[in-house]
Each structure stands twice: as structure tokens, then as C-alpha cells.
């Protein structure tokens, strides 16, 4: 059974078909690439899965459960975490606090009572935050305000914040945007580490060095429709894909 399954998922913004009858299934443990020219509906797809925008038609199932139209915090509680295309940290909270508010997974919820969880703090939650900081390589910055971090550090913190919720599926919306090659390689390594730990990842990305290297399978969107799906090598050879990226209008060729 696929861990994430989209069935004829559709989103219309007025007359614009941002996502059109999209079928997608992601297997547990794989890194799944979602690519396509600008405006092809990749970010909208992520927002539909997370419940940030309402679904026009179709179905989203996670681990066999229907989560179509669930509120974002419920999608997260089900085990799906995400990052944003333009980083959205809590700038005036410290690095440590950014992770602390995200300690919100289901097991955490069951293990402690309300007062302890929210007002008196618990050792377990604090330890978990420290662990995440260590993995993100931000232990030395724990008391910095998130807004004061360098760009690469902010990206790392946002990923750490998503991981702090202990998800089973991670949706990354252009995590490599604005990164230099060195940072892209570091991200590549981090994603592989996560995959080895059993994480399933959906990677929305423009940076082909990353997508072609790290993903197991790729789906290509254009104008909200899926035009190709398969192994990275096959996608690179695919004519429809080349058409979408290069043969289309001049704007999309530059995108």
C-alpha cells in the first residue's frame, strides 16, 4: 500500500486549473521527486495535501486514511510535515523555541498531561529539541533569534522544525532554492540520511543536480497535469518533459 496516494486531485482557482485530475502514489521509504516548470502546480499540490488550500475535487490518502480537507494541524498529527518554498520561521523566537513549539507529535501528546506539556515543560520534549538542534548543526546557535540566522542556517532550521514533529512523510517545497553547490551537496547527504532512517520524502525542486541524484522516482507536472512519471534517467530522456521545459514558450524555458 502506498504511504501517500492522490486520486484525481483537482484544484481550480477561478478559471485556472492549478492542479488537474492528478493521480500520484508514493511508496513508503522512497524519495519522490515532483518537478515541472514554474506555475505547473507543484506547490499547490503540497498545499492541497497539507490542508492549507481547500480541495476542489479528488482525494488525498495518507497511510490508507482519507485526509482530504483536514485542517493543517490534523494533517501534521497524522504524520505529514512540510517546509515552505520561501522560508517561514518564527523570526522573533529563538532557534531553540522554533523547535520547541513544533514538538507536537502524537506520541508526545499521549505521554503527558496538558499542564505539563504546555506550562511546566518536560524533560523529554527538551531533550528531543536538543537532539534536533544537534542533527541540524545548530547547537551553537540555540539562543539566537531565528531572523538573525544566515540563509543556509534558516533552511536547516526549517527542516529541523519539520523533523521535530516526528513525521513519517516529509514534503519539501524547493529546499535547495538559493543554495550554493556546496550547500546542495550537504542537503543531498542529509536527505539520504533521513531516507536510511526510514523517512519517506516528497521533494519539490528546480535544482536538477539534487533531484536527479537523490530521488528514486520522479513525476513531472505541467499546467496542473502529470505528463510523465518514472525513474530519473527515464525522465531525462522523456520527450514530453523536454517539450515542457524547453519546447514550450520562452518564459517556461527560462524558468
Amino acid at each position: 500500500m502506498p504511504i501517500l496516494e492522490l486520486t484525481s486531485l483537482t484544484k481550480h482557482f477561478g478559471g485556472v486549473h492549478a492542479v488537474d485530475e492528478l493521480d500520484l502514489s508514493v511508496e513508503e521509504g522512497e524519495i519522490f521527486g515532483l518537478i515541472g516548470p514554474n506555475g505547473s502546480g507543484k506547490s499547490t499540490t503540497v498545499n492541497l495535501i497539507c490542508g492549507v488550500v481547500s480541495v476542489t475535487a479528488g482525494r488525498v490518502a495518507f497511510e490508507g486514511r482519507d485526509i482530504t480537507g483536514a485542517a493543517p494541524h490534523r494533517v501534521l498529527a497524522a504524520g505529514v510535515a512540510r517546509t515552505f518554498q520561501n522560508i517561514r520561521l518564527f523570526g522573533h523566537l529563538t532557534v531553540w523555541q522554533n523547535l520547541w513549539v513544533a514538538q507536537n507529535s502524537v506520541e508526545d501528546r499521549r505521554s503527558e498531561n496538558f499542564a505539563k506539556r504546555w506550562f511546566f515543560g518536560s524533560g523529554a520534549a527538551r531533550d528531543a529539541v536538543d537532539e534536533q538542534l544537534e542533527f541540524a548543526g545548530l547547537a551553537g546557535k540555540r539562543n539566537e533569534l531565528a531572523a538573525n540566522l544566515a540563509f543556509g542556517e534558516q533552511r536547516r532550521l526549517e527542516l529541523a522544525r519539520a523533523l521535530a514533529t516526528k513525521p513519517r512523510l516529509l514534503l519539501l517545497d524547493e529546499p535547495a532554492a538559493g543554495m550554493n553547490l556546496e550547500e546542495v551537496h550537504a542537503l543531498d547527504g542529509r536527505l539520504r540520511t533521513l531516507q536510511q532512517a526510514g523517512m519517506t520524502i516528497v521533494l519539490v525542486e528546480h535544482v536538477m543536480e539534487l533531484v536527479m541524484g537523490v530521488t528514486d522516482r520522479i513525476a513531472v507536472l505541467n499546467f496542473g497535469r502529470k505528463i510523465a512519471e518514472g525513474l530519473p534517467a527515464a525522465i531525462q530522456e522523456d520527450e514530453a518533459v523536454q517539450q515542457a521545459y524547453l519546447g514550450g514558450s520562452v518564459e517556461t524555458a527560462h524558468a
Partner: protein
Amino acid sequence: MDFFFGLLQIIGVHTLLGLSAYVVLQTGQVTLAQAGFFSIGAYVSAMLTVLAGWHIIPALLVSASLAGIVAGIVGFPALRIKGLMLVVATIAFGEFIRLFWFNFDYQIAKEGITVGPQGGEGFKQIRFFPENGWSTLDVAIFIWVIVALVMLALWWTDRSRAGAVLRAVGEDELAAQSVGINLTAVKVGAFAAGGFIAGIGGAIYAHYTTHIEHLNFGVMLATFAIAYPILGGLRNVFGTLVAVIFIQGILVEGLRFMGDWRNLLFGALIVLAMNIQPRGLIDERSVKLVRGLFTRDTRN
């Protein structure tokens, strides 16, 4: 001496009012309904002590809880609106409560005189303190014990995960939802907590002034409620306290000698203070400054 105790009482009550808005402002919601919740605390507690003969402490807790519940109910429609629309909606709600008291008439005869809220005439003879022989000093101590307890609770919350969650919602609602924060619970909870604190303030206010009327609880009071935490800064609860002392103690009372010119200077000084300290009177810089006074290490 009574003048100073009187001033202490005003500062105490306004601190509670300011803190009630502080909690809601942390979640990024601007509310002008706090005077309404304040009036619920005032009227309901006064009815409990005067008409039902309760002691002030249970009356205060019950009326504040009621104010908190009403505030929570207001919090639900407030979820769907943001920014300026929320400001307008909360003004409307505050006025709704004020006009309710304007029309509310419920009097009973007690020991030969009629007591109780009397519509536009207001609610007179709220005499719990004098009847029980509390001096102005006793009342001032009572008020400040409560203010201290509320400040301690909020200071604690600020440092807890709950406080970080409130601020996270205030910074970015979408990101907050995406890390699992239930926006509805947080926003309604903040409104209810703010309403509870405003209710405590109102209950105390009714009993030290002994006479309340609907005009006490207008938009002007609601404006003061949000002005304190905004002027003081949302960094911590002491900002609100400092702002109340600055406005009520220094500007309102301290400038009395200036006669009619006071109001002019009053506005000018608030504008000046906000320009000098744009993130509030208590911001990162002033906290560092104060810390520097108490530590030998001057590297900071």
C-alpha cells in the same frame, strides 16, 4: 496619603486591563473588546456582592470566569477575520456589551433602599469595601496581590511552551498550523484568558469606585487597554506595567498642574516614547541595560 493609594489602585486595575490585551496581542490579534469584558467583571461581581451578599473573592472569580467564557465565544467569530476587520468587529462587540448595561435594569430592595444596576443611571452603592471596614491601604494591598499573581502567571506562561506557541501564532499563522498548532484552540484560548484577566480588573474597579455606569466602559478604555502593551512592548509583562505607570502615573496625574495643556502634551509624549522605543518601552536594548546594572560582566 490617600491620593497615592488611590493612584496605586488605578495603576493596578489598568495593569490588569493592559495585561488582558497583552495576551491577545501576542497571538497577533488586535482587540478593542477588552473594555466590554472588563465591564462584565465589574457588573457581575458587583451584583454578586451587593445583591447576593457574596464575599469579594468568589464574586471576583465567578465574574472573571464569566467574562472569560464570553470572550472565548467572541474568539470564535474572530477566527475568521483578521487585521482591521477584527478591530472593527471587536469595537462593535465592546459597544454591544456597553449598550447591554445601558439597558440593563435589575433592582431589589435591600435594608430599606433599592440597589442594583439601573440602566443609564448606572450601578451605585457598591459598598463591599467600606461595609467590611477595608481601608484604602487594605484595598491597595488586595489589588496588588492580585496584580502580582496575574503577572507571575503570565510571566511563567511567557517562558513556557504555551507562551512560545502564542508568539508563534502571532508571527506566522500558516507556519504555526504547519507544525501542528491548533489555531482555533490557541486563538480562542488567548481570548478567553484575556477576558478572564479583564474580568478580574473590572471586578476590582467596580468595588473601589463604588459606582459604575456604562460610559466608563467605552472605546476610550478599550483603546487604553491595547495602548499599554503596545507602548510597553510585547517582550514581557513588565512592559505593560511600565507603560501603565508612565501613562497613568506620570502623564495623567503628574501633568495635572498643566491644566488644559495636559492632554496636548499627553499625546505628544506618547508619540515621542514610541519613536524613541519603537519596539516598546521594554525591548531588547533596555533589558540588556538593566541586566548590565546588576552584573559585573560588562561584555554584553
